[in-house]
């Protein structure tokens, strides 16, 4: 318990909180300049997330992929790598899930749905492992390869959908078999048809797995050691190359899960995308916001999901353009990244605290 409290009082937690507050404040200033009332706007935002059951369900739906992509980026980060390719891995996950969901028929739901999810996760994992392999084998920076693989994934997935899965006369795939759905029907009905799905639960479980694996197992220790100092890890007898590929694979699995659940739980089909899905990149921001700690990511994704989902409520109730929320999110990331500014502003607060202690 004491440890838990300490975490709340920790420096990074306070800085994150201050950055969020400053981001919201900056957003309020921008709204004020635009001639809107920031208080009604933020109230409308909260209202649309917590005001009704279906709003809350949809906000959860928005958060689930953000948790998973955030975890994906954070996991690679712990292994000393920067996985910018979550978007591409999400797409691969979607495609894997759609292939199984559409092409495999006649299976009972209890097998079909998990199979589709697992294949989606594997697609994402292997796609990321490819970048890990190139780094381990040839030392190519994963930032470059993952970005390049993003585009390859986009066009490869569009090709697969267009050639094998296309619903004639439209820009999307056929519907996946209902036996592969991971929607929670009864809960959906209870929550006014909000598209809630098992991915929300899996996302939370994934963050617990993340914590347990990295901090409580030997393999996790190895990955962290490689992340902190590959040379020292090598000297200690850890196979660095193997761990790089493994870390990228797990990172990709997490992102692939996000994609699989979007297809099987939310849309029940896959679109031909004209650009990479946004939450792939938002995962980077979520990971930063959560200080690459799994529970931080959970909280960060919660905030992000709330802001992005609530934005339309803000525009509906208070007439504030939803783009304003992008400014808020942008400035929160800015303040997290530029911690010097936050610390500078927090300085008087810290000083007083110290005086009190003395």
């Amino acid at each position, binding site marked *: 318990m004491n440890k838990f409290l300490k975490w709340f009082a920790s420096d990074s937690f306070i800085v994150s909180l201050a950055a969020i507050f400053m981001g919201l404040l900056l957003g309020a*200033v921008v709204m*004020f*300049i*635009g*001639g*809107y009332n920031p208080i009604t706007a933020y109230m409308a935002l909260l209202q*649309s997330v917590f005001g*009704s059951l*279906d*709003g809350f369900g*949809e906000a959860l*739906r*928005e958060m689930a992929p953000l948790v998973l992509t955030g975890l994906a980026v954070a996991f690679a980060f712990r292994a000393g790598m920067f996985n910018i390719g979550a978007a591409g891995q999400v797409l691969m996950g979607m495609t894997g899930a759609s292939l199984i969901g559409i092409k495999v028929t006649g299976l009972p739901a209890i097998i079909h749905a998990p199979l589709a999810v697992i294949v989606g996760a594997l697609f994402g994992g292997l796609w990321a492992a490819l970048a890990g392999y190139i780094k381990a084998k040839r030392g190519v920076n994963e930032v470059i390869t993952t970005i390049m693989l993003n585009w390859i994934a986009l066009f490869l997935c*569009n090709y697969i959908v267009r050639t094998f899965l296309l619903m004639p*006369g*439209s*820009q*999307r795939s056929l519907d996946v078999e209902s036996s592969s759905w991971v929607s929670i029907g009864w809960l959906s009905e209870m929550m006014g*048809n909000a*598209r809630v799905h098992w991915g929300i639960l899996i996302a939370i479980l994934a963050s617990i797995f993340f914590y347990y694996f990295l901090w409580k197992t030997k393999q996790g220790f190895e990955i962290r050691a490689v992340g902190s100092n590959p040379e020292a890890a090598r000297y200690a007898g850890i196979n660095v190359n193997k761990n790089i590929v493994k870390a990228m694979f797990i990172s990709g699995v997490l992102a692939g899960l996000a994609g699989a659940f*979007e297809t099987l739980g*939310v*849309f029940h*089909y896959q*679109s*031909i995308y*004209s*650009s990479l*899905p*946004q939450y792939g990149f938002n995962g980077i921001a979520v990971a930063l916001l959560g200080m690459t700690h799994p529970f931080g990511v959970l909280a960060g994704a919660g905030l992000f999901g709330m802001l*992005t*989902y609530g*934005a*339309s*409520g803000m*525009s*509906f109730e*208070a*007439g*504030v*353009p*939803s783009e304003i929320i992008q400014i808020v999110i942008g400035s929160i990331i800015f303040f997290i990244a530029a911690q010097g500014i936050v610390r500078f502003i927090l*300085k*008087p607060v810290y000083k007083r605290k110290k005086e009190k202690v003395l």
Partner: protein
Amino acid sequence: MKKAVKFSLFMLLAFSLVLAACGNNKSGGTTSTGSEGEGGKTGSDIKIGMVTDTGGVNDKSFNQTSWEALQALEKEQGIKVQYLQSTGEADYQPNLNKFVKGGYDLTWGIGFALEKALGEIATQNPDSNFAIIDAAVDAPNVESVLFSENEGAFLVGVIAGKMTKTNKIGFVGGAESPTIKKFEIGFKAGIEAVNPKAEFTALYASGFDKPDEGKAAASTLYNDGVDIIFQAAGGTGNGVFNEAQDRKGQGVWVIGVDKDQSIDFGNEITLTSMIKRVDVAIKTVSQQVIDGTFKGGTTTVLGLKEDGVGIADTSSANVPQEVLDEVQSYKEKIVSGEITVPTVK
């Protein structure tokens, strides 16, 4: 250090005062916000909403046209109108739901991308009314509006076929969807009707929000000696115009789409525009709701006959009268049924 903090606080205060002054000026003058319900105090409490596709409300194309049509209705009839933008395909359902929950009398879905989402929401809420552009949704409470884009494209094809100097004509589409194919096929048929020898090339971008790809496609075509490009690509088409602007004075032309794009891009590069009267559709169906005559469950197709498609009124700026006369005669033939414009190859 203390001084610095004090100074920055002071600057912040001064800055915010200046900003506040700006803010007041702005809020007095412009009306670019989403909700303007308070403006119309005339009796009617009909509420009409629309959900954009991912192009957004300022796409200089059909989302914008739709919103402008609703705003005009608001002014004329004193109804309340509102829009919601969709940033991704996941937004369609919750956005539509917001209007349903808000008790709106009619909710528009703009574009074929909303077909499935609108269908589902309409089935879940049989007591609410919906309408959709560019897609047919089969539900008793949905009014679907489609356009015969091929007929309008045929007319601008006639113009292109008559006006080309290099005998090479190009087309840039936003995505290889059935709707956009209709533009291409109609356009091609129009060219072939008046100039069978002209060479025709069609290029497609990977989406409607890719001006860079539009610019690259236009550059390829112009370099090949094409002198007239018809774009049916939404925001991507802005890139086509941009490329033409860079080559101003080299005798290159763009044919605009959806609305009179010479207003945005000028007469020096805009040969003409194929108009798709989304505004007419929005006004007609919305008016039915206001009058209480809305039925739903039907699909309306607006073609040349219904004035749902056509060419821009400002075409005469660049197109000589004899070509316009020919366009007129083709129009009459299509309306009378003498010519049937193909929709598929």
